[in-house]
């Protein structure tokens, strides 16, 4: 468990952050560029001294302004992966990977074995290369391996995909998923791309103008008004988590969500897997009678929780689909009036299966 409560003033910008990240699991720190994410990374890594606060990992206090404790960055054993990889250009890939490993204190435990990390990250063919011969995605994988082999207590990933184009992100994302499912480490994943967060994280910390504005599980955070302010109204959508029941004959995964079963396109899905799906609010249709003979695969009975004004002539309807599954639907104000949508009204949410994309987690639900 990582507990952060740090304050730092730099010129006009004041950073005041407090959040926690469980072991294991990915906690995404999500915010716009310039909201203080990079400064936060430097503070946690110990590369920048905070003004005050407290930083604890497990039972170890790394920083405590009241007790005047401040552990140097080199002793924190924090695996940091930077946006620009920061591989050492004069060393081979192997020497880069071994850099932290060689500097471990003799008595330190070494649960991350060289060969395991190399095979997990698919680095076998890169070992003998020089760093300038690597592609952007390969560089980030080597940086991940280098951080892991230093036997970290915590992984701190600072937008590791931000410098890659969309195609190259696929060279790294599957490895991040494997890593998350293979090791029992707290992982803090800083990002400004919600699709990455959806794919990797179960907990989200929302950062805005140097402060934590909301913190919680991804389903709750996906409906938070602060997130809407960050991603914009078109990208708003409730995240729902469920378990794959089975795969149907056409290759769609049947996923139990609340009281309903959704069909979701999910490559390589296996029954029993836990998945996260984001249902974009603008992709949800609301009906007040059970619909028949429609092409829509997913018809979820739900109860209206609230109807809030959204941008322009639209409202955001929050729908309770049972068993804590909540959906958001963005419809026009006029439609909401004609359907007389008021709290507690029974409705049906219609979601096109092709608009859904799920992300699997290979760890059992906790």
């Amino acid at each position: 468990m990582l507990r952060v409560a740090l304050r730092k003033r730099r010129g006009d910008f004041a950073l005041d952050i407090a959040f926690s990240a469980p072991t294991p699991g990915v906690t995404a720190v999500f915010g716009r560029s310039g909201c203080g994410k990079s400064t936060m990374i430097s503070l946690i890594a110990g590369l920048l001294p905070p003004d005050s606060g407290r930083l604890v990992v497990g039972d170890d206090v790394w920083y405590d302004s009241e007790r005047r404790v401040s552990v140097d960055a080199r002793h924190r054993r924090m695996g940091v992966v930077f946006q620009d990889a920061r591989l050492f250009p004069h060393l081979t890939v192997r020497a880069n990977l071994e850099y932290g490993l060689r500097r471990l204190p003799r008595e330190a435990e070494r649960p991350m074995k060289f060969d395991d990390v190399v095979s997990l990250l698919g680095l076998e063919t890169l070992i003998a290369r020089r760093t300038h011969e690597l592609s952007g995605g390969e560089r980030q994988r080597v940086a991940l391996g280098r951080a892991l082999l230093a036997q970290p207590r915590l992984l701190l990933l600072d937008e590791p995909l931000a410098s890659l184009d969309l195609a190259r992100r696929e060279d790294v994302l599957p490895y991040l998923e494997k890593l998350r499912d293979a090791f029992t480490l707290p992982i803090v994943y800083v990002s400004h791309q919600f699709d990455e967060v959806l794919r990797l994280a179960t907990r989200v910390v929302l950062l805005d103008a140097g402060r934590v504005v909301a913190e919680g599980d991804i389903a709750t955070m996906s409906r938070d008004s602060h997130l809407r302010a960050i991603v914009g109204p078109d990208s708003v959508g409730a995240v729902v988590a469920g378990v794959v029941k089975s795969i149907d004959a056409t290759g769609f995964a049947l996923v139990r969500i609340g009281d309903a079963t959704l069909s979701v396109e999910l490559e390589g899905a296996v029954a029993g897997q836990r998945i996260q799906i984001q249902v974009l609010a603008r992709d949800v249709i609301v009906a007040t009678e059970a619909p028949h003979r429609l092409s829509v695969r997913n018809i979820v009975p739900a109860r209206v929780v609230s109807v809030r004004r959204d941008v322009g002539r639209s409202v955001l309807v929050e729908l309770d689909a049972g068993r804590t599954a909540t959906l958001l639907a963005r419809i026009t104000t006029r439609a909401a009036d004609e359907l007389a949508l008021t709290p507690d009204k029974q409705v049906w949410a219609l979601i096109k299966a092709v608009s859904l994309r799920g992300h699997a987690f290979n760890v059992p639900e906790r």
Partner: protein
Amino acid sequence: MMLSPAESDALWLSLSVAARSVAFNLPFAMLVAWLLTRTRFAGRTLFDAFVHLPLVLPPVVVGYLLLVLFGVRGPIGGWLHQNFGIQLAFTSTGAALATAVMSFPLVVRAIRISLENVDHGLEDAARTLGAGALDRFASITLPLIAPGILAGAVTAFAAGLGEFGAVITFAANIPGETRTLPLALYTALQTPDGDTLAARLAIISLSLGLAGLLVSEFLSRAIGRRLGRGRVR
């Protein structure tokens, strides 16, 4: 071309003086370059200007100041002479010192430019991986500024071969002790019938300069390959 004893003396003396001047220079130049790029202190600008003085002062003035400070009766030279029996003025070591002072700004400059180009982020990364300050310098910074150090050393060596004013002022023109190639050339020109000798010495200097440039080009290419420049992906 066979060299006369006087010519080969001058040649070897030049090489030795230039080599020793580089050896004097490097540790101090690295320290000064480090101070100027990585630290902020009061009087930094003045210090920077002071380091660059030899570039703008007439070499004779540098030689004169060295004589005042390092002469047998000077504050530093007197102390060295009394306590260690070391005499710098009018010796080949003195010639190397004068040469070192003249080329000092060149070396500082070369190292400083490469230090400024070292990404601090790499040192930060090394720090999170458990490397202490000295370790970071030895394992990251030093290898990355090696081309700059080498470039500075080669430039200082080449410039040192031709240092004239400061050497003749501080160390005089003593055959076999401080009469380097340019001093020998100057002496030949002052001598009746010295034209042939002067021409031969000029040719030696020219070949030496050319060889130096070729070696430096070769080294920088080799290092460039090692650091992976040249091929960009």
